[in-house]
């Protein structure tokens, strides 16, 4: 039971990070109808920005996270303009290839600029809370709470503001959105900006727990991809649910089966869900 509770907390921490990354991926999928495989690498850049802001410039943790958000928003918009906008009328396979290209470019750029070393964002919040035998580090608590905060903020933006609604409108019906006066270009840029901010948030939160290295985006994008397939491509509740389910399943799998199989669990879950419900849990566009 103790082990279970402990792993549940670990799973929630991991799940929080997955949720934030998968939400960005699913938002972009809704607009572009192609998964942006470079999204995990935006997460990687976010981690580096946070790392350097703290170690090189001595900014505090929250300011560094904020800076990462701003830098990533700009980078996300640039990626949309340079990589995907020119391909907006091209077939899906072209966008696929472009996304993979952007991914390789970002990783290579990180290696050239910052080297291949593993780094870690300094841990500021290192208190440990104990409830009975359950131990939670302060940082993990921050991850869980901050992720929920970001997701609530995203939800309010999408549901309660008319600008936010334009993103959902575009995802639900492109022609309908254009006809009411929504500018496709602006929505595409806005969506990339928001998705990138979420990736930066995830990276800044995860940075003190995990390691920072140029290919750190590759694994998380695989996971995020699994999550949005599980949850239903383009579905926001699906990404949240899928994120937590995967995080918890991985944590449980790691402790009850073997740590070696931690990353295999994700793909087992994927195969299972696709066998039972091939459209995902919350398939988009179902009436």
């Amino acid at each position, binding site marked *: 039971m103790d082990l279970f509770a402990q792993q549940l907390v670990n799973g929630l921490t991991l799940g929080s990070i997955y949720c934030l990354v998968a939400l960005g991926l699913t938002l972009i999928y809704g607009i572009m109808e192609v998964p942006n495989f470079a999204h995990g690498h935006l997460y990687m850049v976010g981690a580096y920005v946070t790392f350097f802001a703290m170690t090189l410039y001595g900014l505090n943790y929250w300011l560094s996270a904020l800076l990462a958000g701003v830098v990533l928003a700009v980078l996300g918009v640039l990626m949309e303009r340079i990589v995907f906008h020119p391909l907006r009328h091209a077939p899906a396979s072209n966008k696929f290839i472009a996304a993979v290209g952007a991914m390789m470019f970002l990783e290579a750029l990180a290696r050239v600029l910052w080297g291949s070393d593993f780094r870690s964002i300094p841990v500021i919040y290192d208190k440990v809370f104990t409830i009975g035998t359950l131990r939670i580090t302060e940082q993990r608590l921050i991850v869980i709470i901050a992720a929920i905060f970001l997701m609530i903020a995203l939800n309010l933006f999408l549901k309660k503001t*008319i600008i936010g*609604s*334009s993103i*959902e*409108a575009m995802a*639900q*019906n492109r*022609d*309908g*959105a*254009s*006809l*009411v*006066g*929504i*500018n*496709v270009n602006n929505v595409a840029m806005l969506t990339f900006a928001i998705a990138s901010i979420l990736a930066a948030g995830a990276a800044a939160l995860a940075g003190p727990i995990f390691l920072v290295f140029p290919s750190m985006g590759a694994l998380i994008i695989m996971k995020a991809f699994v999550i949005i397939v599980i949850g239903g491509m383009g579905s926001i509740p699906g990404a949240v649910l899928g994120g937590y389910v995967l995080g918890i399943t991985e944590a449980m799998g790691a402790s009850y089966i073997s740590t070696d199989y931690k990353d295999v669990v994700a793909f087992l879950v994927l195969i299972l869900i696709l066998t039972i419900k091939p459209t995902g849990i919350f398939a988009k*566009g179902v*009436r």
Partner: protein
Amino acid sequence: MLKVKNLSVAFGSYRALQDIELEINPGELVVLLGANGAGKSTLFRAISGLIRPSAGTIEYNGKTITGQPAHQVVRYGISQCPEGRQLFPMMSVEKNLLLGAYARRKDREGVRRSLRLVYDLFPILQEKGHLSAGSLSGGQQQMVAIGRALMSAPQLLLLDEPSIGLAPLVVKQMFETIQRINEAGTMVLLAEQNANMALKISHRGYVLENGRVVMHDKSEALAGNEEVKKAYIGG
């Protein structure tokens, strides 16, 4: 007023529209008759800026709007209720309507007035305001689509087959509503296969065949024309 001159649209080597000449004057309700595939929706899409014409011009109130993107065209006062409705199925009815006013969202008072007007036209929508648009019946979804198009307070309303798939009684109401919208001062271009009713409420009509205008006249004259009767009224 809207003036379409020499308009052609091509998809690859297929010519969907050829040399279309059409105009709508202030206060008019104009009907566009044509079978499936005649090019009605293509013409609508071209006017709204969803597709680019290969030749010709579209003028609105003396200004050339050819090739302008759709999100800009609605800001000039031309609003379309498109074929297939193109609603936001997972959003509530009210949100669909409010997004219809996206282009004039800063005019809060005006948006509220428009919403009132739409609810007066279609009281059932107010009742169902919080349900998702995708869960409504076909006729109600059609009301949402027309309502959404009205929310931008258009001077020119393009209605692409609003009666399609509706029960006969609902069709009758729909046409009465369209007539009321027109009488309130909005120009209407109505694409229809249901020529009988459409010719009764409209002032003038155009007949589209294989991407060309083959006939245009006053509605009474078209209603009495033998060829039109044979092809579109079935009498």
